[in-house]
C-alpha cells in the first residue's frame, strides 16, 4: 500500500507567479477563436471576406445615397398628415412622455436605494453614462433623425424632451417615499395629458400618422387588450365549463388567423355589425381589431404567468382560510402578473412591428408614409426605396432591440424561472 504521496511544495521548486488567467493572449485568441482547425480557417476566410464586402457596400451606399427624400418627408414619416400648424401638439406630448419615462426610471432607482438603505447595504446609481450605454440605439436614431431636419425647432423639442426626462429622473429619485408610491398615478396622469394635448383642438386621431401612429396603435392596442386578455385568461382557468369553453374558443380562433384578416374585418365588416348610431372612424375600427387580436395573445401570456405560480402558493393561502377569489386576487394574480412582465414586453415588441400591417387598410403609418413618399412626383421611380426602407427599418430596430434587451435585464432581475 502506497501511503502519503503529498510531497512538500518546496521540493517542486517555487510556484511560478502570477496564476494563469482564463482569458487568452491576443495571439492565442486568434489561434483558438479563428484558426483552430482547417475548416475554422476556411470559415474565417469566407466570413471575413463577406464582412469586408458588406462593409464596403455599406460605405459606398452611405456615400452615394441621396437622403433628400428623407429631409423633405421627415414630418410625413414622423406624424403623417397631422396639421402642420398644430405640430406643437406632438412636440408637447413628446416632452410630457420624456418627463413620464424619466420620472418612472428615477422612482425605480429611488425605491431601490431606499430598500438598500433599509437592508444596510451600499447603493450606487450607475449614472448617466450607463443610461446612454443601455439606450444608445434609440439616442443614435434620434440624432440621425434630427440630422435630417431643416429647421431648428425639432432640435429644441429634442433638447426639451431630454431636459424633461432628466428633470423627471431627478424628481423621481428625490421625492420622499410617501409621494413616490403614487408616481405611477402621476405617470398615468402625464400619459392622459399627452393624449389630450394630441386629441384636442380639432385634430382627431384620424389625422394621425407616421411613427406617431405606430406608437399610438401599439400602446393603445395593448392597453385596450390587457383587460380583455386578463378576463380571457381567468376564464380559461375557470372551473365553469361554459366560461372556459368560450375563452378557449376565442383564444384559439384568434391565434389561428392572421392579423390581416382581423384588420380587414375592422376595415370592411365591423361597420355592418354596429348600429348606425355607433359608427366609429376607420382608425378606431382598426384599433378595435388590433385590441381584439392582441387580447388572445395577452391571455396566453397571462396564462403562462399563472402557470409560473407554484401550486404550493394556492395551498398555503387556502390553509390560511382565504376564500378562492381572495386567493386569486391577493396571492396568485400579483405573482402571475410579475412573472409575465418579460413576455408582455415581447408581446409589445411584436405588436409594434405588426402595426406596419395597417398599410393594407389604408392607414398612413411610417411604412405607408415611406411608400407614399417614393411615389411623389419628385421622387418617383428613382429606386429611392433603398433610402426610405432602411430608415423605417432603423426606427423599428432601435425600439425592438432596446426593448428586448431591457426585457432580458428585467427577466434576470426578477429571477423569473429560477425560483
Amino acid at each position, binding site marked *: *500500500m*502506497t*501511503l*502519503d*504521496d*503529498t*510531497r512538500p*511544495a518546496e521540493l*517542486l521548486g517555487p*510556484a*511560478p507567479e502570477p*496564476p*494563469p*488567467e*482564463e482569458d487568452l493572449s491576443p495571439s492565442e485568441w486568434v489561434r483558438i477563436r479563428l484558426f483552430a482547425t482547417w475548416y475554422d480557417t476556411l470559415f474565417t476566410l469566407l466570413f471575413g471576406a463577406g464582412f469586408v464586402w458588406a462593409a464596403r457596400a455599406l460605405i459606398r451606399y452611405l456615400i452615394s445615397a441621396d437622403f433628400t427624400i428623407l429631409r423633405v418627408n421627415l414630418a410625413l414619416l414622423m406624424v403623417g398628415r397631422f396639421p402642420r400648424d398644430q405640430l406643437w401638439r406632438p412636440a408637447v406630448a413628446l416632452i410630457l412622455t420624456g418627463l413620464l419615462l424619466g420620472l418612472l426610471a428615477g422612482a425605480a432607482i429611488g425605491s431601490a436605494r431606499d430598500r438598500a438603505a433599509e437592508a444596510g447595504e451600499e447603493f450606487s446609481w450607475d449614472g448617466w453614462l450607463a443610461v446612454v450605454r443601455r439606450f444608445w440605439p434609440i439616442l443614435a436614431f434620434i440624432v440621425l433623425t434630427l440630422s435630417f431636419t431643416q429647421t431648428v425647432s425639432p432640435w429644441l423639442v429634442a433638447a426639451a424632451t431630454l431636459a424633461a426626462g432628466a428633470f423627471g429622473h431627478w424628481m423621481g429619485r428625490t421625492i420622499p417615499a410617501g409621494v413616490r408610491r403614487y408616481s405611477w398615478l402621476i405617470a398615468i396622469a402625464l400619459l392622459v395629458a399627452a393624449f389630450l394635448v394630441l386629441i384636442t383642438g380639432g385634430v382627431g386621431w384620424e389625422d394621425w400618422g407616421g411613427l406617431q401612429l405606430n406608437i399610438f396603435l401599439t400602446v393603445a392596442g395593448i392597453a385596450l387588450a390587457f383587460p380583455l386578455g386578463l378576463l380571457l385568461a381567468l376564464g380559461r382557468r375557470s372551473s365553469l365549463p361554459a366560461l372556459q369553453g368560450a375563452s378557449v374558443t376565442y383564444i384559439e380562433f384568434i391565434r389561428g388567423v392572421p392579423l390581416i384578416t382581423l384588420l380587414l374585418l375592422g376595415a370592411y365588416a365591423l361597420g355592418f355589425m354596429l348600429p348606425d348610431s355607433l359608427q366609429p372612424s376607420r382608425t378606431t375600427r382598426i384599433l378595435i381589431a388590433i385590441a381584439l387580436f392582441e387580447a388572445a395573445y395577452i391571455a396566453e401570456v397571462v396564462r403562462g404567468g399563472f402557470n409560473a405560480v407554484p401550486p404550493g402558493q394556492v395551498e398555503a393561502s387556502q390553509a390560511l382560510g382565504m376564500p378562492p377569489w381572495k386567493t386569486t386576487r391577493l396571492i396568485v394574480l400579483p405573482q402571475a402578473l410579475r412573472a409575465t412582465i418579460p413576455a408582455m414586453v415581447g408581446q409589445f415588441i411584436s405588436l409594434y412591428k405588426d402595426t406596419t400591417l395597417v398599410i393594407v387598410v389604408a392607414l398612413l403609418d411610417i411604412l405607408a408614409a415611406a411608400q407614399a413618399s417614393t411615389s411623389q412626383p419628385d421622387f418617383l421611380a428613382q429606386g429611392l426605396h433603398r433610402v426610405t426602407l432602411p430608415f423605417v427599418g432603423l426606427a423599428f430596430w432601435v425600439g425592438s432591440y432596446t426593448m428586448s434587451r431591457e426585457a432580458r435585464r428585467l427577466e434576470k432581475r426578477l429571477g423569473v424561472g429560477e425560483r
Partner: protein
Amino acid sequence: MTNTSVFSDATRVKGEPIIYLEGVDKYFGSFQALKDINMRVGHQEVVVVIGPSGSGKSTLIRCINRLEKHDRGVIRVGGVEISDDIRNIQEIRRETGMVFQQFNLFPHLTVLDNVTLAPREVRHMPRGEAEALAMQMLERVRIPEQARKYPGQLSGGQQQRVAIARALAMQPQVMLFDEPTSALDPEMIKEVLDAMVELAKSGMTMIVVTHEMGFARAVADRVVFMSDGQIVEVGTPEHFFTNPQEDRTKLFLSQIL
C-alpha cells in the same frame, strides 16, 4: 476486448501508481481551486477523498478525466499524460469510468441503451456482445430487470446503480465517483453503497469523493482529507478516524461525526 487497454501490464502490479498527479494547480478565474496537488493511486487501490464543500475534491477527480482542464502540473493515468491532445484525453477517458452526483443518465434512451451506447460507439462492440455485457453489469448492480425501462421510471438509487453499470460497461481500469450518494434519499443510499463496496472488493481501482464515513472506514485503503484546494492529510482509515494529526482534519471530523 480488454486487450484494447492502453495500459501496459506493468501497471497491473498492485501498488504501482495507475494515477499520478504532481504539482497540479487549477484556477477558476482568479480563484485557485487546487493548490499543488500531489497524489498517486496504485492498482486496485481504493482512495476516499473527504473534505468540506468547496475544498476542491470534485475538481480534483474531474481533472483526472479532463472534465476540467488543470492549469499547471502533471497528471498521468496509466502512464498516459493528459495534454491538450484530444487523442490522449480520449484514451484516458476510455479507461476511467465516472459516476456523477446527479446520475446524468441519458433520459431519451432506455437503461440498456444507456449502458450499451459507449461500448458500441467507442469500442465498436457488436450489439449482441454489448447487450450481453450490459446485462452482466446490470446484474452486478442488481437491477437486470429494469433494462427496458427509461431512466425517468426509476428511483434515484436505481438510476445511480445504472450509472455505475454504464461506467463499468466500458471495462475501465479506474472508477471515479463524484459524491455518488449526495443526491439520494436516505433509504436509497445503502443500495448504491453496497454496489460500490462489492466493486471495491472485486479489485477495482477507485477514487471516491463522498461524505459517507462508514464507506471510507469499510473499504478505503487510504483516506485523503482536502481543504481549501490542498491535500491536508493522508492516511489509513484507522489512522484517520482514531488519530488525526492536523487541526483542520480534527475540526472537520468533529463537525460531521
